């Protein structure tokens, strides 16, 4: 069991800055994120994009902002549970929250701060009728262990790096047959990956179907055939053991929608006094919350985090007086 003062769900910019502000009040933090790295959408979607509205930085790359926030949080030694999704919460006898991830990791804290941004990133699923019935019965959205596909017939859909890289990897002595299906002729992956895939297609090791997409999936219990539609040449049926659609990730609010929080339009309602939710001890900050006048800006999330930790402190130590200390006077004293 991981014990901390503030359990932060979401290791994006807002969650990371919470560590700093909480640290100034001598509160410890632990962050949980479904992604395998810190930084949230800044790292996952646009690390190389400049952000122009961070005060005092006329321009900073999203990835650099995350690096600097990590550096700023470092003195306060935050803990991380990465690559796991916050799944369930319950209260124990001492009024502390027990939060369990999808992998069963348990965390305990008197305060939960939801800084979940857009939600958890999950694989984008193609709109093929009845697809859900074949999930884990031949349809996988993530390749966890390539050995799973040894001597199997595999169809991969997608035009990006992950589709290309896995098609290449599986075609080189793992799968018995690899088909790569893409909506258009051009691939957007790295040039050398594209070239390699083309070479393998030439050599007959990858069956390349461009200008095509999968429109139907069939089988009895397990996946057996896919119907592939070409832009102009009509349909064909492919027999396969596996289909791996790789269309990137999109955010979903996920399990927190089942936590009895007041939610409007995929955002958690908060009181702007301290960004508390309807559940005492649970706060929501950053892009995931909503209130009259809400703006989804990183700088607004920083403000929300700062006010939130003051309230969290008073909740944890109702008898202690809190005096706002200025870092310019006192410096930053880590743990």
């Amino acid at each position, binding site marked *: 069991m991981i014990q901390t003062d503030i359990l932060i769900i979401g290791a994006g910019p807002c969650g990371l800055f919470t560590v700093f502000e909480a640290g100034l009040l001598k509160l410890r933090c632990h962050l949980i994120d479904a992604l395998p790295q810190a930084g949230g959408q800044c790292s996952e979607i646009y690390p190389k994009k400049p952000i122009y509205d961070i005060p005092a930085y006329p321009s900073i790359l999203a990835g650099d902002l995350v690096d600097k926030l990590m550096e700023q949080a470092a003195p306060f030694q935050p803990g991380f549970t990465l690559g796991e999704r916050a799944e369930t919460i319950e209260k124990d006898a001492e009024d502390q929250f027990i939060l369990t991830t999808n992998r069963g990791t348990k965390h305990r804290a008197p305060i939960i701060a939801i800084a979940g941004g857009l939600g958890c990133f999950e694989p984008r699923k193609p709109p093929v009728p009845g697809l859900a019935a074949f999930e884990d019965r031949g349809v996988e959205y993530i390749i966890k262990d390539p050995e799973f596909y040894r001597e199997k017939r595999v169809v991969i859909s997608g035009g990006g790096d992950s589709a290309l890289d896995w098609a290449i990897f599986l075609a080189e002595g793992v799968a018995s047959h690899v088909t790569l299906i893409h909506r*258009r002729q051009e691939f957007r992956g790295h040039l050398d990956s594209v070239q390699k895939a083309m070479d393998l297609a030439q050599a007959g090791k990858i069956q390349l179907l461009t200008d095509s997409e999968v429109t139907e999936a069939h089988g009895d219990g397990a996946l057996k055939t896919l119907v592939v539609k070409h832009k102009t040449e009509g349909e064909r049926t492919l027999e396969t053991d596996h289909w791996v659609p790789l269309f990137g990730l999109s955010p979903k609010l996920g399990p927190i929608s089942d936590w009895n929080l007041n939610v409007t339009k995929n955002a958690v309602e908060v009181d702007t006094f301290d960004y508390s939710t309807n559940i005492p001890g649970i706060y929501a900050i950053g892009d995931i919350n909503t209130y009259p006048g809400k703006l989804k800006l990183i700088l607004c999330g920083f403000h929300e985090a700062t006010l939130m930790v003051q309230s969290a402190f008073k909740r944890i130590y109702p008898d202690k007086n809190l005096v706002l200390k200025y870092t310019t006077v006192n410096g930053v004293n880590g743990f």
Partner: protein
Amino acid sequence: MDHIIEVNVIDRDGQLHKLEAPTDMGMNMMELCKSAELPVEGTCGGMAMCASCHMYVDSSHDVPEKSDDEEDMLDEAFFVEDNSRLGCQIYLADALDGLTVRLAPVGQ
């Protein structure tokens, strides 16, 4: 010309919305739809880095061509047609007066 055009947005229920749109605010179709509270997510904020503002251009307006980034993102969208665009990449301009777009279906 007071930099206001009218565009038509057909929502996913087939209902037509006539929207007045300023052309001097650097606004794009994703933002316009959001400001009219139409169901367009605009997850990435308009950087052509998600595909949640996927729409079809149904009128014959001369909309600026797709960038490689936009084309790449459409690879991650579904229900893509020849007239598919990301709304965030269609900037409102006087020449787009009378533009008609249709919101693409959303996947799961």
